[in-house]
């Protein structure tokens, strides 16, 4: 497969590159805004888990008018700088990060908090869903520190087995919770966005970042595991019907007009964890299995031995207790 394959399979990936967005997810926020007017009247916005920065790009262009809006982007990872975005490299579970955000807004709370963060999926679905839920709850926890009353919170969710628990938890803090899926998010993807409007914490709630918000668990009355009562919030499909279909495969000459030209990705990842391993692999320095030819074995003339188990035993291991 050539490098154009992904452009054909995913029209938004291609459009993002062509329009200078750092990731295709920029379209998701734009389409969410189309539906919910998220940016209306917003002066201060926070982008949590911002890297690589496509949502910050959108926020910096759309929030406020002519540079009057303020955007703070927070991420644990380093992110390439963006004009008009204040960056904080920090942990969203730390109180200091919340204080720093407020500091940048000169003591004013934020109007909008967004979080498009997802953990690096491990492929074990229950672990990934848990990790995503923790990320969302951590984002919610810091949002309770920085969001103004009536403010809006948008975060990515994985619609897996326990998504109803997240809905019930979000409902405690917001007057309206909806599940929205922009057209630019693929049908095959389990991701969706919780759009929570009207921040209204329960009476007596004191924001506390020293204690993580933990998931709810199922109860027998309001949110049953397998009964008819489950908290399923209304679903809204965003983006108008004329928008491109993210599942459809398009031909490379989209409008027949301009000729297709391959565009490289806008912002390649900065210092991924596998960098060192890849460098070693490229230079052939990964440890290699000791092949028999490297072992000095002169067994060619030996009589054939049966490969019974006991001949394989390392005598040093034999006497040990079973270690389990």
């Amino acid at each position, binding site marked *: 497969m050539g490098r*154009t394959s992904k452009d054909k399979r995913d029209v938004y990936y291609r459009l993002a590159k062509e329009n200078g967005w750092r990731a295709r997810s920029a379209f998701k926020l734009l389409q969410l805004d189309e539906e919910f007017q998220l940016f209306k009247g917003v002066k201060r916005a926070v982008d949590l888990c911002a890297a690589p920065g496509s949502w910050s790009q959108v926020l910096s262009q759309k929030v406020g008018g002519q540079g009057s809006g303020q955007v703070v982007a927070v991420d*644990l990872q380093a992110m390439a700088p963006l004009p008009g975005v204040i960056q904080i490299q920090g*942990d969203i579970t730390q109180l200091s990060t919340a204080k720093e955000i407020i500091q940048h807004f000169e003591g004013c709370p934020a109007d909008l908090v967004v979080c498009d963060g997802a953990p*690096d999926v*491990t*492929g*074990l*679905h*229950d672990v990934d*869903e*848990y990790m995503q839920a923790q990320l969302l709850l951590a984002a919610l926890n810091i949002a309770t520190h920085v969001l103004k009353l009536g403010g809006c919170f948008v975060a990515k969710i994985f*619609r897996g*087995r326990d*998504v109803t628990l997240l809905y019930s938890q979000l409902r405690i803090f917001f007057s309206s919770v909806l599940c929205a899926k922009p057209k630019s998010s693929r*049908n095959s993807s*389990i991701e969706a966005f919780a759009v929570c409007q009207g921040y209204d914490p329960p009476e007596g709630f004191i924001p506390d970042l*020293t*204690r993580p918000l*933990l*998931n709810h*668990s199922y109860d027998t009355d309001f949110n049953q*595991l*397998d009964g*008819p009562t489950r908290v399923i*919030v209304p*679903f809204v*499909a965003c983006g108008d019907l004329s928008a491109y*279909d993210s*599942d*459809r*495969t398009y031909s*490379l*000459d989209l409008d027949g007009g301009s000729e297709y030209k391959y565009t490289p990705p806008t912002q390649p990842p900065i210092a991924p*964890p*596998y960098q*060192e*391993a890849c460098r070693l*692999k490229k230079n052939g320095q990964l440890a290699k*299995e*000791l*092949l*028999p*030819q490297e*072992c000095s*074995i002169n*067994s060619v*003339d*030996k009589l054939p*031995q049966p*490969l019974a*188990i006991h001949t*394989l*035993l390392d005598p*040093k*291991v*034999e006497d*040990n207790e*079973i*270690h*389990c």
Partner: protein
Amino acid sequence: MDAFGDYVWPRATSELILLPVTGLECVGDRLLAGEGPDLLVYNLDLGGHLRMVKRVQNLLGHFLIHGFRVRPEPKGDLDSEAMIAVFGSKGLKVVKVSWGQSHLRELWRSGLWNMSDWIWDVRWIEGNVAVALGHNSVVLYDPVIGCMLQDVPCTDRCTLSSACLVGDTWKELTIVAGAVSNELLIWYPATALTDNKPVAPDRRVSGHVGVIFSMSYLESKGLLATASEDRSVRLWKVGDLRVPGGRVQNIGHCFGHSARVWQVKLLENYLISAGEDCVCLVWSHEGEILQAFRGHRGRGIRAIATHERQAWVVTGGDDSGIRLWHLAGRGYPGLGVSSLSFKSPSRPGALKAVTLAGSWRVLAVTDVGSLYLYDLEVKSWEQLLEDNRFRSYCLLEAAPGPEGFGLCALANGEGLVKVVPINTPTAAVEQKLFQGKVHSLSWALRGYEELLLLASGPGGVIACLEISAAPTGKAIFVKERCRYLLPPSKQRWHTCSAFLPPGDFLVCGDRRGSVMLFPVRPCLFKKPGAGSKAITAAEAPGAGSGSGGSESVPTGIGPVSTLHSLHGKQGVTSVTCHGGYLYSTGRDSSYFQLFVHGGHLQPVLRQKACRGMNWVAGLRMVPDGSMVILGFHANEFVVWSPRSHEKLHIVNCGGGHRSWAFSDTEAAMAFTYLKDGEVMLYRALGGCIRPNVILREGLHGREITCVKRVGTVTLGPEFEVPNLEHPDSLEPGSEGPGLIDIVITGSEDTTVCVLALPTTTGSAHALTSVCNHISSVRALAVWAVGTPGGPQDTRPGLTAQVVSAGGRAEIHCFSVMVTPDASTPSRLACHVMHLSSHRLDEYWDRQRNKHKMIKVDPETRYMSLAICELDNDRPGLGPGPLVAAACSDGAVRLFLLQDSGRILHLLAESFHHKRCVLKVHSFTHEAPNQRRRLILCSAATDGSLAFWDLTTAMDKGSTTLELPAHPGLPYQMGTPSMTVQAHSCGVNSLHTLPTPEGHHLVASGSEDGSLHVFTLAVKMPEPEEADGEAELVPQLCVLEEYSVPCAHAAHVTGVKILSPKLMVSASIDQRLTFWRLGQGEPTFMNSTVYHVPDVADMDCWPVSPEFGHRCALAGQGLEVYNWYD
């Protein structure tokens, strides 16, 4: 299955779960494996065989098992009883079992304790358990009564990715926590001043640049190993972790995995790590890789267990397979490469070719025309002969058979062939066959009766020589029997040959990639009536080295059957006959299974060798009945087992272009090659059998995208399947005939798998897999289900035709035949034959210089398939069904399958949807006094359904199908009969059922979690005028329409209307829900939480009145449910 009365029927119960193996533990000679919420206990005997003792069902409810902790017994007696703490996700349960000889009894189980957070580690602390939780806290828990005794958080409540608890008392309990910040935090829960008072970390250790997925502590040596996202394993000298303030020193940083490392385990002398790259590495504590275990497929190895006394490593993979490996320490015993020290002043000349006669004699020829023998027992070189006519160009091949029949053949550039008895080289016989160069030599052996030598000369002529020996053994006779002629090509010579049993034909492969059949006795072939035994005795002792041969046979006999360019331009490398099939290998990285039917070669299946093995050089049957593939992977020679996906031998020989030879016997295998002017020999005792054991076969390595039930095979009592799952169940064989459901699955791993699911044992057997797809398989359809002997035959078995489709716009059609076979564990044998294939962009592959151009066509994926069986009386099209495909480029395409699936071509298409079409479904409308009508329903990502009247469209002279703009292009399907906007976004499931009133119930489920059910009526307009000839077009209309907006919390990926009153739906939110229909809005009846995540497809079928329904859910795993009607 408990308490039926409490629920509205039906109630689904889980029968079988195939999920990634995330928990493994060895306890004595038993292996505990977690499979979803079930605990499987296996017995490991000394041979490494595994026998399932018991499945302890549903221990963790809707959680999946991630680990076991067996309570240490002070007296060390775990052989009769054990307390096992089972945990996963947020659930914890303790179960007490007694395991005698082979019986396992569950003595007691605790309640399912729900923790407030994710459980990363559990450790038994004097009868209680300490639990390390997700946000860096430790809980001391009484697992018997289920109450929390202590709850101590750390001051740093970060999210963890792993944790390890050390110590046997609460006082000395130590937690090593892997934080998201990539640091290790070591702290002591018992140092909390009061309960719930946070404890500050004692030490913070950094080093990894990714999160830590696994840790292992070796108390005896004070070592800690960590596995990380950064693809490395680190070894730390920590001393006694229970002592605060100790120094932590990084003593090893091991890079060896090519992806993230999921698991690590420290042993006294080894460090075992396994990861996303599906490799399990055995390291020394010094950081050398001693062994690498490869064989799992898919997304990696998720669990490791070790049995130190037996030096076994057990791994569990994402493919739901479990394997056992032998720790061998440094290097394998009894194998290695050695140089045979050919170079010597007494042996002038450079080596040209090398071969093996059996596995203990090496033959080599030099550029001065000397033939040498090396006997591994004598260990010295001996010159057999010197003939300067074989200078500079010389081919050398030893005869097949265990000891090579004691014969080898030489050929030169002037058409001379010399057959040399190795023990008596002076008795060599030579024959001048051609005027020009002999391009290739090969042998063919039939039993011990007939030995042929084939030599290719100029112009594609193959001379067939018959070799026989005098009864004294002192002389051999060489007689030219006939000449064959190869089809024309640039490099026109044969590369390999074999007898096709019973021995009337020779199979040859040529340099052009073709496989062909030649008659062994051409004279008899022309007169089939003649006797067949007469000629073998007719030896002509006086044939000698005469020159008459070439004139008497002027041209040569052509092949009776040819598969042209089967292996492409790089050529065929070997042909082998085994078990009624013929196998060919080629340098196109594939091997073919073929068979001969009525004197004609027919390809059955194309199989791919392991990744990177582009040069498949040969195929061998090993004594245990399985097959191994020989090939070259870059500069390595590899012996690979398709059954275990394991590389059995790897020899760094430099590549396949040099002279090499391979030989294997039960005792040993040998591989010899030339390198740097020297003869090298690799030998491995034990041949191609590895003692590594597949404890449980894996299924697909990646997500399963589609599942379809084919049919049921009923086996009589003579095929009684031993009930391994419930050996202590009281009804042995009382069930009568065994019902086995045959199910096919398609996966993102590009394969289609045929599975047998017996109703009695709750197990699954993978019968065959089909690897023809080049991209992921996304859809399957089945038709023409029957029995092998036809409708009258009552013998058990099943035949069916299957169509599979997926990425890269590729469709394959094949037939499946399942027959009873008492010799296999599943009691079934499965034969698959590939029939036809189609790719939209096939023309692209044929283009020259395609790498220089950008292909603008979309990379169309087929999302769904439906078989539309038209009436047989269609004029003009001939019998055969239509296949409708939902395409990602926005089209609905119709393919026509003819000649029982052997011809597949694109008939018509429509871009009506203009969006990715997700589902197609077909059904027939039958009404009294009316023609049977075939209706196709398609659904797209915008939530709309379109209905197409195929019967009208397919009628001759119909105007519905528009003629294509250019001949050769498909017809255009026009506009659909009706469209319904059912959902706000993508339709992920679709089903219909005719109602007793003559209407159709249509149900669909969507990405937005909604269900849509409506009644569709098909109305025929009254024949108003006497317009007799004009075909009446039926009108479709919606009668009753209901929508359930929040039926599920995620995509509804499976929906099935079981009866006009009952519907079942399945979703990615892992609920299987029953709905009552027919009383207005569909109403919720009950739902069951299942364990397979990301379910992409569901199929339900009735099994028998006693057994009820079965339902297969396929996603990241496979789960089978059943319910009683």
